Structures are given as structure tokens and as C-alpha cells.
């Protein structure tokens, strides 16, 4: 992303940030199915994954239309390499133990919830309509992940240690949720995207509230300039994509 790109390119890239974040987070949560700590958690995590894939499909279709190169949801999901993905790097972080998954989801859910809450007023009416649907889903996702974080943080000594360790390990990835870049500013200026400062303030407030209830300490802000939303990812993403894209890459050009 640079200042020289056209309005359509910038718009498309912004929608891909939202789309890829849902897609990659959905892929991670779907890995839990059949392996959760209780049957109820298997079902709940699958529900959240389904919502995220639903958001990703709508947003990828929208991005493809803005791009105007006849790429549909599958062409975008299965036909791009890691550097072309625009998800926040937090979403691609491995599941780890249940605490790591929950901490990752708490941070992401809060960010998606605040982002979509603002996007319902987007100048892009289609994006606004997708946000209307997504915000209801994100409310439930937040209720689930924050409920579990409180139980883990204020449960046993072991669960508190694990939640605390996950928070320390993942906190640096919140830098890009909070630091607006040129594209975020440009989208806000033209009314497509939310005002970054507003989303950031609400996100911080939400996180502070849940961490206090979970008896966890808000870590100090860590500068971490490697932002997935600009295509700079961790090693985890190529592995995730190798799995996700395996079949369409092996058998290109067929329908499934």
C-alpha cells in the first residue's frame, strides 16, 4: 500500500484486511473441531468458525468486485500467496493450548466488534450491510471468549498461569490493531473505514475491562512494526495456507 495507489486499489486492500482476518481466524478455530476440552466447546468454536468463514466469503466477494479482475471468493482464498494476504498477524497465530486460543480470540473479537460497530455507517453501503450482520456475530464471539478468559484467569492457579503466559506471548500482535497506518487513515478520510482513534480507544477499554475481571494485568504496549495487514506475516501463515490451499493448488482449474 502506498499513496500512489488508486482509490479502488486502496478500497480493495482495506476490504481484504477484514476478509483475510476472518478467513485465517476461521481456519485456526476450525482446527479445534473434534479436539476441544469439552463437546460444548467443540460446538461453540465451530459456530464461531462458521460465522468467520461466512464473513470472509462476503468480504472476499466484495473485494473481488472492487478489484474488477473476475476473482471470486475461492480465487482470492486459494490463489494468493502469504505476502498477498492482509490479515492481522494475530489471526494466524497457532492455537496453542485453549488459553492461547481464548486470549487470541478475546483480542480479535474485541477488535472486530469495535471495527464492525463503526463500519455499519460506512460510505460503502455493501460493506455497511456486511458489518450489520457481522456485528451481531461478533457480539456473541466476544461473549464467548471473554466469558472463558474470565473463567481461566480467575479459575485455578494453572489456568491463570496459562492465560497470563498467552497474554504475554500474543500482546505484541495487538500493535497493528491499535496503530493506524496510511491506509486506515485514508479509508477513514473517505468515510469507508472507521475512525482509528475511536476504534482503538474502545478496544482498549474493552480489553482493560475483561482483563480486570479475569484478574490479569494489561501488558505494557510493545512496539511491533511487522504488520500482517501490510502483508508482513509470521512463519505461521505459510503453513496455514499450505494446508488451506493444498487441493486447489494440486488440481487447478476444476470445480469442487
Amino acid at each position: 500500500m502506498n499513496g500512489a495507489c488508486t482509490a479502488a486499489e486502496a478500497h480493495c486492500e482495506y476490504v481484504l484486511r477484514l476478509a483475510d482476518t476472518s478467513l485465517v481466524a476461521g481456519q485456526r478455530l476450525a482446527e479445534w473441531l473434534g479436539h476441544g476440552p469439552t463437546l460444548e466447546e467443540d460446538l461453540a468454536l465451530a459456530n464461531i468458525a462458521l460465522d468467520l468463514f461466512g464473513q470472509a466469503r462476503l468480504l472476499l466477494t466484495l473485494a473481488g468486485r472492487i478489484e474488477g479482475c473476475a476473482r471470486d471468493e475461492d480465487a482470492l482464498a486459494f490463489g494468493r500467496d502469504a505476502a498477498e494476504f492482509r490479515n492481522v498477524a494475530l489471526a494466524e497465530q497457532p492455537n496453542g493450548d485453549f488459553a492461547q486460543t481464548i486470549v487470541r480470540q478475546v483480542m480479535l473479537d474485541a477488535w472486530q466488534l469495535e471495527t464492525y460497530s463503526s463500519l455499519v455507517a460506512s460510505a460503502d453501503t455493501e460493506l455497511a450491510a456486511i458489518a450489520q450482520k457481522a456485528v451481531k456475530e461478533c457480539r456473541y464471539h466476544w461473549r464467548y471468549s471473554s466469558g472463558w478468559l474470565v473463567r481461566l484467569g480467575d479459575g485455578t492457579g494453572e489456568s491463570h498461569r496459562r492465560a497470563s503466559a498467552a497474554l504475554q506471548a500474543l500482546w505484541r500482535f495487538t500493535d497493528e490493531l491499535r496503530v493506524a497506518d496510511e491506509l486506515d487513515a485514508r479509508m477513514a478520510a473517505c468515510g469507508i473505514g472507521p475512525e482509528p482513534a475511536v476504534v482503538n480507544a474502545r478496544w482498549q477499554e474493552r480489553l482493560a475491562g475483561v482483563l480486570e475481571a479475569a484478574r490479569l494485568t494489561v501488558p505494557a504496549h510493545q512496539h511491533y512494526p511487522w504488520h500482517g495487514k501490510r502483508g508482513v506475516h509470521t512463519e505461521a501463515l505459510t503453513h496455514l495456507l499450505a494446508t488451506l490451499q493444498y487441493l486447489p493448488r494440486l488440481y487447478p482449474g476444476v470445480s469442487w
Partner: protein
Amino acid sequence: MYTQALDAQPGAAGADDAEQQARLARFQERIDRDEKIEPTDWMPEQYRHMLIRQIAQHAHSEIVGMLPEGNWITRAPSLRRKVVLIAKVQDEGGHGLYLYSAAETLGVTRAALIEQLLAGQARYSSIFNYPTLTWADIGAIGWLVDGAAIMNQIPLCRCSYGPYARAMVRICKEESFHQRQGYELMLTLARGSAAQRAMAQDAFARWWRPALMMFGPSDAHSVHTAQSMRWKIKRFSNDELRQKFIDATVPQAHFLGLSIPDPELRWDAASQHFQTGPIDWGEFEAVLRGDGPCNRERLAARREAHEAGAWVRAAAVAYAEKHPEHAPAASVG
């Protein structure tokens, strides 16, 4: 079916006094009148045990059955296929939940039943001990495994035990949808590239015979069928259901352009049924015994999930004890 191992169980001791005989007779009369037996009703201990075992085996089958299909969720080749598969595997988890709840109405706990499964003391359907090696296996499972399951489960909607019968109504609706999505997946592959057609044929060849075994041993070797049928827990014999499945499925395979991996398969005009070659019951016994291709992996995956989740469950309990005001679920915001 998902409860095929029941057929190998010995009968329990009968009633030994007049009052017990009279109760048994009244119970049988209720069954004969097609009345539903409810959790608080008197029932013979053997009926209770038979049902607990059957429902538990069915529930375990759903839970273990999430694994072979779950194996392809992260690799589904389109986003539409991915959400369909997640929803299907999620349905299976839901069926497990339903069925464990139905079993609990008979005086056992889900935790105890799961302990039995993890200890290797409980059975689940042999079919889930086969591997899912290609994407086409997802189609073959939906079409054949869910198709076979439906054959057995539709009659269970009329099972004499109320909670089980009612759970089966919803389960059958979902299974029927699963079967259609599996067949539609196979149809897409059958109409696809040469590589996709080969994938579909390979999957069909591997799943056909294990699917036939899902109905359990032939009637001649199924010692438990008679009592189970008298009590209307079971309404058709294994061989009747297997034949019904074969007759329905062979034309479907032909429509897909797939060849049946059985040189002895033929249409028998006299009986108006398809006749198949012999089933390898040695393989069936081996898989039930624990020596199938994936028995160890399936149980290991369940044990790992259970053990890795122990601290999470403990945390939930500890939190609930500290905060009874928040029971049953914590929530923020």
C-alpha cells in the same frame, strides 16, 4: 450400525419370581401397544442396560466419527465445501450431546460413559476406524456412511424408549441432509476431471465393504436381535437393513458411473434384490477388536483431547465455585 457390537452380547438373567414375571408381562403389553417408555417408568434391568449400551455406542460413534471427517476441514477445496463440512461435523457433535443426554435419563452420567470409551471398554461403529485419505472420502462418507446410518436410524424414531426415539427424529433429519451433501459432492467429482473421477472411484472402492459391515453380523450370528426386537429397541434385522441399503445404493453408484468393487454383485430377478459377494467378517471382527487401520489413532485423539482439556474443565469448575452468582455461564459486556 453405530451399535453393531451389541449383537455380540450375551443375554441377561431373566425374572425369577411371580411378581417380577407379572411386571415383565405388563411392560411387554405396553411395548406391544406401542406406548413409549419414559425415564420414570418401571423397566426391566436388561432393557435399561441394553438401551444404555446402544445409546452410548451410538453417542461414541458420533464423537469418534467427527475425527475422520474433521481430518479434511482445514483442506476443503472451496469455502462453500468448508462451511458445509464444518456444519456437518458440528451436527455430529450435537448428535453426540443429544444422545449422551438421552443415555443420562437412564441413570448413567456422560462422564462415566466417556471414561468407558477412553478406557477402551466401550464400542463405537467400526466404520470410523478407516482412514480418510482423499477429499473424495468426505463424499463417500456422507453418501455411504450417513446413508447406511439412516437405514438403521429411521426405525429408531419409533423405538420404544421415548427420549431415544425423540432424539432420533432430529438426528435423522440432519443425517438425511448429510447424505444428500455427500452424494452431491460425489456427483461433482464424477462429473469433474479424470483425476477427480479417479478420486471418487478410489474412495467408493475403499468405503463400500466397510459400509456394508456397518449393519453388523448376519442374522445367523446376531444373538441379541430377538430380545431387542421384542422390546422394539430394534425393528429390523441386520440383514434386512443391509439388503435395503444395497438395493438403494447400487443404482446410485451406477448413476455416478462408479463400478462396484464386487465381481459377484448381480441382480437377482427371483428375489428382486441385488446379491453381493461374501463379506469379510474376519476383517469386521478385527476392526471391532481394535485392530482396524485407525483404531489406535482415533482413541488416542479422543484421549489427548480429554487429557489436554482437563485443566480447562477444572478452571470452569473452580470459577463456578468461587462465583456462584455467575452460574451457569460467565459473561462480560
